[in-house]
């Protein structure tokens, strides 16, 4: 799956020095993030980093102590109703009225969002593959089905901005894959996705942008491809000669050649294509250029 790049710079979500304290503990500390229209934005951080608190503030469930949140260009404090009208959310493990059917649950939530079209309930039930079980009470649902129903309620009304907090929790590998594909499909349909996840490969596979927070602070934010491409692995026909050529270049920070002849190159972001051109022009046969580290390596380095 190829991560999508944002096509424009229209900000859907911006937070400005967003801060939340619980007593003496600062859960979120002057957080600035920006999500553009069309982004699939990965929101990463270890447990207790402040991800859920941030999401709850974005949705108006928790009131910030300082800073501000703007969605669709409007301040959340002033335009909460109209903002939430355009936003769908799954916040952690979804809860439903177990004594009611899935359809009834969705109907109640749809009415709250001003949606009275029964076809919309069918649409979201079909998306998450629960249409055939729609009349069953939620108490008969498995954990994975409840999770999918949670995603269904977030999709009611086809919102422009969808916040998904750990959407694949409790799903089997097939279910996880389906949800990832669903997120990509939603993004294709012009929805902007804010995805909080512990599964780093999930973010790596489907997100085009990401932010990593730790101890409530933003550590890094940017395009996934750029952040991961700062260290690359290059395979050429004469690695030792290539090392000599590349070591002269200013934006190449370091080069290591391992026993199998693979070059591990650390470089400034945005120079991969140029590096390839230099090698080819110098007569080297470049057989592979690939990201030299996974998101997991990157994440662990940053949060240490």
């Amino acid at each position: 799956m190829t991560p999508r790049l944002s096509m424009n710079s229209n900000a859907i979500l911006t937070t400005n020095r967003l801060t939340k304290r619980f007593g003496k503990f600062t859960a979120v500390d002057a957080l600035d993030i920006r999500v553009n229209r069309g982004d699939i934005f990965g929101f990463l951080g270890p447990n207790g980093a402040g991800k859920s608190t941030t999401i709850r503030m974005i949705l108006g469930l928790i009131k910030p102590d300082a800073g501000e949140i703007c969605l669709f260009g409007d301040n959340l404090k002033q335009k909460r109703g109209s903002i939430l009208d355009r936003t769908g959310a799954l916040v952690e493990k979804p809860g439903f009225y177990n004594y009611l059917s899935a359809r009834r649950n969705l109907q109640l939530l749809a009415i709250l969002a001003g949606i009275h079209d029964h076809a919309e309930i069918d649409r979201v039930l079909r998306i998450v593959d629960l249409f055939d079980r729609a009349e069953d009470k939620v108490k008969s649902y498995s954990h994975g089905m409840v999770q999918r129903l949670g995603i269904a309620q977030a999709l009611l009304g086809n919102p422009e901005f969808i916040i998904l907090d750990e959407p694949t929790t409790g799903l089997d590998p097939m279910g996880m894959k389906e949800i990832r594909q669903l997120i990509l499909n939603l993004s294709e349909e012009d929805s902007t996705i804010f995805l909080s996840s512990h599964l780093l490969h999930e973010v790596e596979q489907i997100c085009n942008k990401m932010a990593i927070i730790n101890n409530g602070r933003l550590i890094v934010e940017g395009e996934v491809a750029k952040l991961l491409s700062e260290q690359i692995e290059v395979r050429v026909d004469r690695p030792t000669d290539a090392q000599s050529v590349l070591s002269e270049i200013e934006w190449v920070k370091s080069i290591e050649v391992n026993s199998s002849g693979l070059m591990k190159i650390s470089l400034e972001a945005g120079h991969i294509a140029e590096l390839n051109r230099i090698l080819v022009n110098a007569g080297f046969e470049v057989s592979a250029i690939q990201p030299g580290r996974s998101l997991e390596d990157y994440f662990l380095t940053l949060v240490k």
Partner: protein
Amino acid sequence: MIELIKIEWIKTFGKMRTYISFAAIFVLIALIFTGLKIDGGQFITHSTAFRGLRHSFFIVGDLLNGYFISHLVMFFTMVHIPFLIVLVAGDQIAGEASGGTLRILLTRPPSRMKILTAKAVVSLIYSALLILTLGLLSLGVGSILFGTGNLLIADKGILILTGEQALQRFAIAYPLAILSMCVVTALAFLLSVLVENAIGPIIGTMAIIIISVIISETPISLFEKIKPFLFTTYSTVWQKAFYNPIPVADIVRSSGYLCMFMLVFFAVAFIIFNRKDILS
């Protein structure tokens, strides 16, 4: 707003728990009726209130009729009705918080104030329906099973009300009983906003009521100073509908205090809920 109330209505009356209270009232009234049908004469003979009466008066006819039984049922059950009310009112917010549905509700466009108002309205309707069920069952079924007649009330003195007068007094007493239970509803609602588990408001409300009733009913000079500030001091106002003459000023004053308590409880609940961080 009407739609929000409809949603809360569906949620509240879609739950089994809601019907436990109605079932309890049915069972209770059925038991009292059965007992009195089988052994009603014995009850009147051995009743403390009427034992002395039979020594002093020659009573013609049967004291045991639908009105008498309805008054008896009201007297016995009103003390326990709060428990049935808090089962639902106490669950309105805390139950949603513990079930994880509150955060889904609050991420929808309607404001917290609107959602809470809808919940408050449905809780009050539920409480009123419970008291009305009690009244209709005891008066209606009681009159069919035991017939109608004069209502004899023995309290500080003896009051004999004709059937028509008795019905008028019930028509005053039941709305007052509803008002008094609405205060219990508001208190349970307030505690429901404060905690995030459904048991807390139930236990908390009952504990407050029990302590307040004890203080209200205990003739200790220290307690006398506290009594005016307890809603339980006024919650037996419905009983005054059966006094002769009806203490209108007293009833109006007590009702005013009950309204005030109810509004304060709801107002505090709204203020807290509006500011509350939803962490559940």
